[in-house]
């Protein structure tokens, strides 16, 4: 590619072909010049060293991180079964027939998870972009947020491209897709063999993922008119109670909002919004509410089974990602049809995209078909609304949990305990069912908030008890009324907000930016994400939220009946709770960190990945928290954070990603940086201590999150603020002072004033020496040293 600038000229390759040419100078024959793209220059920022990075371009940066944050593998499987030499036993120090050892295999599995996640967002982005270009035109301008010039920080950083219209995003996706193919190839037998190189490729997948997510979200914001970074967005309703069950109900499940948009459009265009309820589960719900706040957010991904079995939906529309693959069977059990809308999840259904709408509606309404595949969103809109209305008429009165009296069902229980062992959280289901036999449902009721809704208990039950339904039925009266307000996802963070908070974040005076992201595989109920969030909101951290976490934050009220969206403002500032939106809106979280380096610190962004990541690692106290992380997408989102130097804390189920990236705080040599002022090496202490960390309990997580917000660049005041939170939280949850303060106090000015005596006592016990920990202009990149002494 010859790259002369940034702005792309007409979206076609330039080809020059000369069959034969003679002149006085000489003779040409069969000359062919092929220029992929021509870019014109109107972005005066100099191109950085790594535009469109290949798999190996950022390998050195990755290895710097991985030499400090070493992988700790916890294999799920000791065997490799990916080729016909196998199964190969890799236990301990054995190698497989291909020569790969256990470290290599585990990192390979992590890579596979990461590129599945990145591919999923990329495919989502491709579908979104192609559709929007088709509907709105390729010259639709990119307009992401008000008061904002840096519209696409991830794309600018990685690709060195400043996208202006939808068509510019096509090049970005071409690049991402070509790189993902390289990563998939690296996982083939007999390719990559070193675990650290596999890990570098994991980081690459993560970086690509954030680019793809950004494409998807800025495209839909620009074309569909989703909120453009305004802090106080409209309030949408969340929960079962938001649905008026007396009307036909369409339930949309998944992540790609396009089919749901056409359902909403059809309702609006035909004046039917008051007559039909449309609600969503998971990120589709977020984006529906961003499009029109009248769309209801039923709940997080783990509510699929619950909500289907409640009997409330009259039609289920699935798009893509995290949908239950047994949705047809579940829907059939309550007598409602399913419409699949993505070629990525056809679910065995007949493709009727080209058939007449009326015939499809008839077939679905009369149960001639259990479901259909329709890939044209416009057709989905009409068919869904009309089908739901017909099915509703047929089902009137049947909208309820289809289960006999719980105590009667419970009598079949043998008390074998298989349900408890299969439950991801080992919930005491056996005890609850035992007491339910006697008509006491107290224990069943108590399981409701703790259940992640996976249904594994039912699969393990030798007498096929419908345990999930029993739990839900026991809670029916209270949950059916639950309804909570949630500020709809605002999308990007405005540049003006970054200018305002850049300095206090980088100097440490705003103690940190905490991003509550990810799925709903919680270890002890959904209320935990609200608890973690409020702990930091009260302490004036900035808390961002997305996906299922953003919904679950809404679904917890305090004693006065208020949730966090009602108690905390939506601006990106100290004590703000910022719902960015769906999974793909996570790109705005990484984007905010990138923009702090660019807008506040004036670090060049364009194709300058290492420098920006180095800046974030050393200066921006951001921490990702995925308390219920479940999917491969969550893995790739986390990987994109790691490469940018943002640590991620996951809940205990996150250990099943089978690899942590852990620092060793006691190893001084691991915590040295260059001082950009003089080129000398300096010991800065273990900040941030880990890059990927599983916490066993919420309390452990909260303390660790506060610690991970520390950065080498903190000013004395900033470090004192951060230490005060770390110490206070440690005392609150561990009942004692931390025993590692000597690693984080650099000089006496760092000591929180109100804790001075206690801290000094500990420092003396640890033989602490002032200024052993330096406060340089920190960088891991030798090339950023400005002057050498």
């Amino acid at each position: 590619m010859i790259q002369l600038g940034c702005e792309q000229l007409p979206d076609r390759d330039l080809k020059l072909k000369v069959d034969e040419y003679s002149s006085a100078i000489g003779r040409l024959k069969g000359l062919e010049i092929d220029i992929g793209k021509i870019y014109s220059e109107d972005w005066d920022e100099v191109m950085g060293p790594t535009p469109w990075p290949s798999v190996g371009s950022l390998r050195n940066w990755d290895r710097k991180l991985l030499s400090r944050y070493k992988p700790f593998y916890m294999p799920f499987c000791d065997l490799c079964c990916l080729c016909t030499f196998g199964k190969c036993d890799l236990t301990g120090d054995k190698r497989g027939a291909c020569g790969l050892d256990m470290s290599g295999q585990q990192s390979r599995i992590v890579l596979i998870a990461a590129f599945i996640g990145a591919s999923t967002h990329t495919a989502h982005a491709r579908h979104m972009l192609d559709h929007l270009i088709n509907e709105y035109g390729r010259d639709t301008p990119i307009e992401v947020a008000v008061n904002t010039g840096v519209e696409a920080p991830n794309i600018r950083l990685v690709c060195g491209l400043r996208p202006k219209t939808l068509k510019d995003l096509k090049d970005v996706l071409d690049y991402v897709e070509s790189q993902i193919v390289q990563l998939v190839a690296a996982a083939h037998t007999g390719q990559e063999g070193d675990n650290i190189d596999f890990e570098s490729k994991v980081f690459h997948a993560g970086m690509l993922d954030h680019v793809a997510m950004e494409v998807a979200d800025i495209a839909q914001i620009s074309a569909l008119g989703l909120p453009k970074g305004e802090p106080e967005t409209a309030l949408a309703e969340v929960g079962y109670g938001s649905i008026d069950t007396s009307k036909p109900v369409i339930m949309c499940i998944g992540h790609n909002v396009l089919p749901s948009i056409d359902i909403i459009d059809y309702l609006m265009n035909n004046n039917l919004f008051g007559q039909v309820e449309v609600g969503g589960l998971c990120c589709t719900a977020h984006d529906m509410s961003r499009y029109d706040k009248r769309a209801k957010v039923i709940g997080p991904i783990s509510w699929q089974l619950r909500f289907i079995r409640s009997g409330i939906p009259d039609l289920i529309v699935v798009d893509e990602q995290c949908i239950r693959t047994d949705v047809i069977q579940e829907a059939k059990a309550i007598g409602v049809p399913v419409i699949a809308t993505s070629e990525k999840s056809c679910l065995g259904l007949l493709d009727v995209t080209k058939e007449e709408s009326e015939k499809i509606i008839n077939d679905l309404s009369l149960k001639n078909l259990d479901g259909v595949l329709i890939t044209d969103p416009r057709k989905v809109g009409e068919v869904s609304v009309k089908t739901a209305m017909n099915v509703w008429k047929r089902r009137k009165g049947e909208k309820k949990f289809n289960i006999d009296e719980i105590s009667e069902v419970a009598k079949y229980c043998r008390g074998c305990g298989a349900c408890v062992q299969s439950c991801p959280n080992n919930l005491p289901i056996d005890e609850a069912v035992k007491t339910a036999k006697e008509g006491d449902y107290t224990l069943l009721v108590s399981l409701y908030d703790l259940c992640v809704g996976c249904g594994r208990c039912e699969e393990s039950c030798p007498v096929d008890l419908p345990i999930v339904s029993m739990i839900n039925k026991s809670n029916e009266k209270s949950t059916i009324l639950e309804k909570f307000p949630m500020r709809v996802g605002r999308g990007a963070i405005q540049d003006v907000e970054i200018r305002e908070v850049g300095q206090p974040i980088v100097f440490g005076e705003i103690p940190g930016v905490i991003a509550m992201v990810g799925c709903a595989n919680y270890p002890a109920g959904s209320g935990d994400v609200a608890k973690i969030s409020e702990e930091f909101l009260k302490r004036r951290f900035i808390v961002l939220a997305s996906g299922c976490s953003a919904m679950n934050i809404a679904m917890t009220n305090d004693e006065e009946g208020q949730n966090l969206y009602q108690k905390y403002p939506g601006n990106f500032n100290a004590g703000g709770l910022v719902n960015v939106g769906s999974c793909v809106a996570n790109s705005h979280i990484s984007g905010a960190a990138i923009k702090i380096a660019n807008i506040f610190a004036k670090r060049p962004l364009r194709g300058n990945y290492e420098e920006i990541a180095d800046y974030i690692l050393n200066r921006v106290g951001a921490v990702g928290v995925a308390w219920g992380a479940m999917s491969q997408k969550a893995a790739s989102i986390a990987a994109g954070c790691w490469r940018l130097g943002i640590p991620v804390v996951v809940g205990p189920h996150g250990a099943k990603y089978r690899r942590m990236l852990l620092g060793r705080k006691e190893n001084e040599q691991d915590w040295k940086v260059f001082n950009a002022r003089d080129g000398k090496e300096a010991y800065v202490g273990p900040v941030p201590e880990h890059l990927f960390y599983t916490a066993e309990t919420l309390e452990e997580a909260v303390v660790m999150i506060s610690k991970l917000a520390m950065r080498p660049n903190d000013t004395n005041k900033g470090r004192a603020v951060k230490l005060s939170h770390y110490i206070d939280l440690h005392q609150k949850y561990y009942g004692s002072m931390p025993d590692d303060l000597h690693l984080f106090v650099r000089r006496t000015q760092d000591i929180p004033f109100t804790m001075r005596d206690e801290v000094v006592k500990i420092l003396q016990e640890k033989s602490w020496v002032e200024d052993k920990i330096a406060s340089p202009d920190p960088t891991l990149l030798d090339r950023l040293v400005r002057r050498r002494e």
Partner: protein
Amino acid sequence: MPGKMITGQIAEIPGPQKALIIQSAESVVAMIKRASRPIFVFGSEAKNITTNDVDLINTAIKLSENPKNTIVTTGHTIAEFRRRNGDKVFSMQLMNLGDRLRDPDWGGFDGRGPYDIVVFAGFTYYLEWLVLSGLKNFARGLKTISLDRTYQPNAGWSMGLMIEKEWKDTLEKIVSMLAEVK
């Protein structure tokens, strides 16, 4: 084994190498006593698991009376130990501990070098499973034992699935012998 075994050990089996079943309280005690540097790790579920000492926290405190036994608790559970005067118990987060247990150069809590046998109890099934997997594969010199009530295939030795009373009695017997200071 004093307890009645459930036929076949139901577990998520990782591969060819699986834990041996602890055949008797005496045998596991003998194994631990033979070790020069044993460490006992109690997880955050310890306060929710009832034993003949009321709960696993009290059991761990009893074990800590013998100075040969190094006791560490994970998560934020140390707060509960301190409330009960379990002052001889160390605290370290599970991931940090797992990472160090695999390191032959780690000096341990007293700086005297790595441990040679690690005994786990008081964890959710999957979390213990995973950390034991990490140690099985990457801490080859370290012996691992699970005293939890479920079979942990990644341990070197594990209790079998037992009915609750028999597990409590067996655990009491093991702990009584290990807590005894001679």
